[in-house]
Each structure stands twice: as C-alpha cells, then as structure tokens.
C-alpha cells in the first residue's frame, strides 16, 4: 500500500495556499473596498462571485471538450484525458449552479424577480441540465473505454451551447444585461475598484478551478484503478490456472 496520503503534492498545496489568500483578498475588495453602484447600491457586490462563477463554468466545459477531442482523436487513447474531462465537467456543473443561484438573488434585487424565461437564463438552464446529463452518462456503467467514448462525443456536442449562452443577450432581446467586459463592442464602464475586484475574482476562481481539477482527476484515477483491480485479479487467476 502507498505510504503517501491523499491526492495532494507540494505543488497543489502551494497553489491551494495562493488560492485561499486570493479568495480572502477578493472578499475584502468585493465586500469592503469597492464602491457601491449608483443605481444598484451594494447589490453590485454579487457580481464579484456571479461573473467569475460563470466564467469558470465556460472554462471547465471548454476543457472538457478539448480533452474529449484529444481522447477521441489520439492513436494512444489515454484514459487520463477522459478523467480530466470528467473532473472538469463536474466542477463546471458546480460553478453553473453557483452562477444560477447568485444570479437569481441578484435578479431579485435589480429586476424585481428571481427568474425570467429570457434568452440568457433559459439557455443557461439548458446548459446546466445538459452537463448534469453528461455526468449521469459517465456513470451509466460499462468499461472505462465505453464511458470515455460516449461521454467524449456528448462533450463535443454540448460545447456548442457555450457561444449560444454567451451571445444570447446579443442575438435575442433579453432582460439580462449584455456583457460588461467580455464583449468586443461593449463600452467598459466599471468605476474605481469595481473592475479590479472583478478581475481579481476571475483570476482567483480560475486558480481555484485548476486546484480542484488536479485533485478531482486524481481521485477519479484512484476510482478507476480500484475498479480495475477485480478484473486484474480475474486475469491473474486464469494465468495461474494455465501455468498449473
């Protein structure tokens, strides 16, 4: 048995400390140092977790699609790609959920309602459901390679939803405001420390995502290894019988 405990390494522990410090700094900048908005007041402070959360979800699903494409296209189909795709997809679902909940609370204060069936919210809900389906498909059973093949195909189909969600506010009339930063045509206006706090949030959440993926794909690797043990034991038993 291993003498090492857990999925951490010196590098992930160092990264974890940096992430923790950045998240503490984000809390100070987002909740204390940055100014209130002239229209929304302190409600604007929800933006510093809501926007980074959906950014990480986009990033996570993008990584899922890239790893799935590599798995499907490679001659040596390493399951490591599939495990990173699965880990990233799971973390993406968590961040979409965070984005939906915080967005709903923000919407109640600014729009006057928790939910509307406009283009942005409806397409985001569809994105959330699609990736819950992706995670369920990964757990349907079969061999690791069967899991990797079917989930990779689904990941490549699902990724087309990201531009649909992001540009929904430009393509259709929506209650949700258009992008403040991630739009080449937008006139960026985030006064004072607002823009800095937003970018701090984006950076901190991105590093948190990297840390989570590193750990999660290692636990998936252990789960796969344990599932393989039964199969390995059967093959070893057959070999022993053949030798006798």
């Amino acid at each position, binding site marked *: 048995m291993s003498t090492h405990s857990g999925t951490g390494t010196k590098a992930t522990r160092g990264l974890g400390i940096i992430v923790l410090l950045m998240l503490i700094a984000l809390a100070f900048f987002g909740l204390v140092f940055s100014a209130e908005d*002239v229209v929304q007041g302190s409600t604007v402070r929800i933006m510093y977790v809501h926007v980074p959360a959906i950014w990480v979800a986009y990033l996570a699903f993008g990584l899922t699609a890239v790893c799935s494409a590599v798995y499907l296209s490679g001659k040596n189909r390493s399951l490591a790609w599939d495990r990173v795709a699965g880990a990233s997809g799971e973390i993406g679902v968590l961040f979409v959920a965070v984005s939906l909940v915080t967005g709903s609370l923000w919407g109640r*204060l600014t729009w*006057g309602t928790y939910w509307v069936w406009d*283009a942005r919210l409806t397409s985001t809900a569809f994105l959330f459901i699609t990736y819950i389906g992706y995670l369920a498909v990964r757990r349907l059973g079969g061999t690791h390679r069967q899991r990797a093949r079917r989930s990779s195909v689904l990941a490549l189909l699902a990724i087309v939803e990201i531009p649909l969600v992001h540009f*929904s506010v430009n393509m*259709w*009339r929506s209650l949700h405001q258009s992008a403040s930063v991630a739009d080449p045509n937008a*006139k960026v206006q985030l006064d004072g420390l607002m823009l800095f706090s937003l970018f701090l949030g984006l950076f901190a959440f991105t590093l948190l995502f990297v840390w989570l993926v590193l750990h999660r794909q290692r636990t998936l690797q252990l789960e796969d290894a344990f599932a393989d043990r039964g199969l390995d034991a059967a093959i070893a*038993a057959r070999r022993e019988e053949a030798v006798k």
Partner: protein
Amino acid sequence: MDLTPRTNSEAIVEPAKRKRRWGPVVIVVLALVFGGVVVTKFLTSAIDYYCNVDEVGSRTGCEGDRRMRVQGIVEQHSVKQVDGATSFVMTFNGEKLPVHYAGDPGGVFQECIPVVAHGRVVNDVFESDRIEVKHSNQYVQKNKTRLDKANEEAAACSVSAD
C-alpha cells in the same frame, strides 16, 4: 493459455462487474425531460422576450389587444404613486406609452431606467401586473462625498440612457 469462455461458474474469480446502474439512467431521462421543457420555454418565451414601445400595435406578436411584455425607458418626472398603484410613462424611439401598475414595482425601479412591463393595452393605457427592471451593463460608483442626491439621479439617467 486457455482463453475460452468459462462454463463452470464456480471456478470463476468474479471481476468487479460494471453493471448497468439505474440511478444515472433515471437522471439521464429526467435531464431529457427537463431539457425538453427548457427548449419549449426558449421557443415560446425567450426569443424576443419583449416588444419595444414603438412596436406596440405595429409588429407581429405585439398587437395591442393581446397580453405581451413591453420594454421602454421610464420617462423622467412621470412616476406617480397613488393609493398603492404606480403610473408612469415608458418611452422608446420617440414613442410613448402610459403604464398603470397596481402596486409598487420592485428591483431598482426608478426614472430613466429601462423596464419590461407585462400586461395588455386597455383604452390606450398599458395595464401591467408585473414590472421587471432592465439594468445596464455599466457600473458607476456612488461617491457620497462628491455627489449629492440630485447628481446621483442624473448619473443614473445618463447610465440608463446608454
């Protein structure tokens, strides 16, 4: 080595079977059902969430006698609150539409801000039962030391009008 399939089940060392799991199957089915509901909502509600004030009565889907959502900017100095009801004028592209709402609009409702009102036109007045505030994508900091209330309102107007 003999690799033919075994017939004597007792001699088999059972590998970890990867059986069909029903929990994920149920989740996949639920995802398909809810996905269908969301797509239906998208096609019936999300595309063109509202009509603009200048399209009421002139654009398909914005006929005056049907229930609809109308978007416009709350005209400055037009908001009046009497007996718990709120009336104001919405403007867009030079057209105006008087709105009557039986309540106090929520959110950050104020003059000069774009809103979406749900309801129907009755005697040239838009009788609304729901108001949603459409916030801009620009954020202006409130500076308590330099801006008095009037200036804040003016700043809000300039942000909303963009």
